[in-house]
């Protein structure tokens, strides 16, 4: 394994995909965040607190810039995990080239570490969420993410250990085991009880759009790492030249 080349293409793929996420969000997600911030401002004004609108405009521009930086950092950090999983699953993934394999793994990881936690604890725009409960909500979200991630890891190990001889049975056992454990986690973990004081349309549109942009991020990450992999081939190492006399 060309370790340094592998680490570089992994992190660069994530940085690019994450930057794309931050930029796409400017177009698709920001209109909903701005609507939610407007509701927050109206609530603040209604409570009698002064709001400096000029300062708010500058502050929002700063936060929108921060979203792109955050996208790059988040993309790089997620790709670090994606790269490790890709190395150990590449031989088992379907697909004739690394772009296809990368895209398939990205789809699986989008499902396991974004979609499943989001179904239990969906994304919320600003104006939803009590600051007093943030640590509690963070714990629940991490809990769901960890349960989904480690369950997927466990069933992947079972999938490999069953081997080719039990090809048909593992197609049933593996997803069924994952589904049962996730269903139990959904039943046992408490729901987010914070009050939602914005319109159902704004809430639902925000959740749909953020799911789409996160899907685009994961897709871009898989294709980028697969493309770099096809060019760099970090799994191939050249043995020393042999001299036969």
């Amino acid at each position, binding site marked *: 394994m060309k370790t340094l080349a592998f680490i570089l293409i992994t992190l660069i793929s994530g940085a690019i995909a994450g930057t794309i996420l931050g930029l796409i969000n400017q177009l698709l997600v920001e209109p909903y965040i701005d609507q939610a911030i407007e509701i927050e401002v109206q609530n603040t004004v209604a409570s009698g607190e002064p709001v400096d609108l000029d300062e708010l405009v500058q502050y929002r521009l700063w936060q929108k810039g921060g979203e792109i930086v955050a996208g790059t950092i988040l993309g790089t950090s997620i790709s670090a995990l994606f790269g490790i999983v890709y190395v150990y699953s590449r031989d088992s993934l379907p697909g004739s080239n690394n772009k296809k394999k990368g895209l398939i793994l990205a789809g699986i990881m989008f499902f396991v570490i974004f979609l499943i936690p989001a179904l239990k604890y969906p994304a919320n725009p600003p104006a*939803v969420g009590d600051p007093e409960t943030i640590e509690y909500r963070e714990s629940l979200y991490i809990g769901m993410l960890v349960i989904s991630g480690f369950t997927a890891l466990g069933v992947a190990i079972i999938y490999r250990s069953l081997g080719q001889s039990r090809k048909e049975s593992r197609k049933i056992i593996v997803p069924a085991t994952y589904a049962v454990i996730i269903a139990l986690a959904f039943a046992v973990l408490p729901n987010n009880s914070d009050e939602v004081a914005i319109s159902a349309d704004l809430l639902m549109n925000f959740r749909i759009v953020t799911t789409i942009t996160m899907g685009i991020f994961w897709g871009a990450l898989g294709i980028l790492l697969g493309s770099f992999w096809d060019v760099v081939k970090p799994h191939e190492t050249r043995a020393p030249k042999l001299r036969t006399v």
Partner: protein
Amino acid sequence: MSNVNMLLVKESSGLPKIAIGVLLAILLFGMFIVGYDQGQLFSLVEGQKAFDDMWMHEFYHDLRHAAGFPCH
């Protein structure tokens, strides 16, 4: 006497532990500062002020919401 030069290409699928460690450290650090920091990191330098300012929370605020992390 003859010389035969052979170039062998072998495939290896493992990763050195140090590489896994570096990548996991990047994962945890990046996820923490973007998704969870409430002033903890800057408090190492600024003390209590960092928890009041929550600079990183505010700067990464929009992506926190958009990526599904709990916020506010």
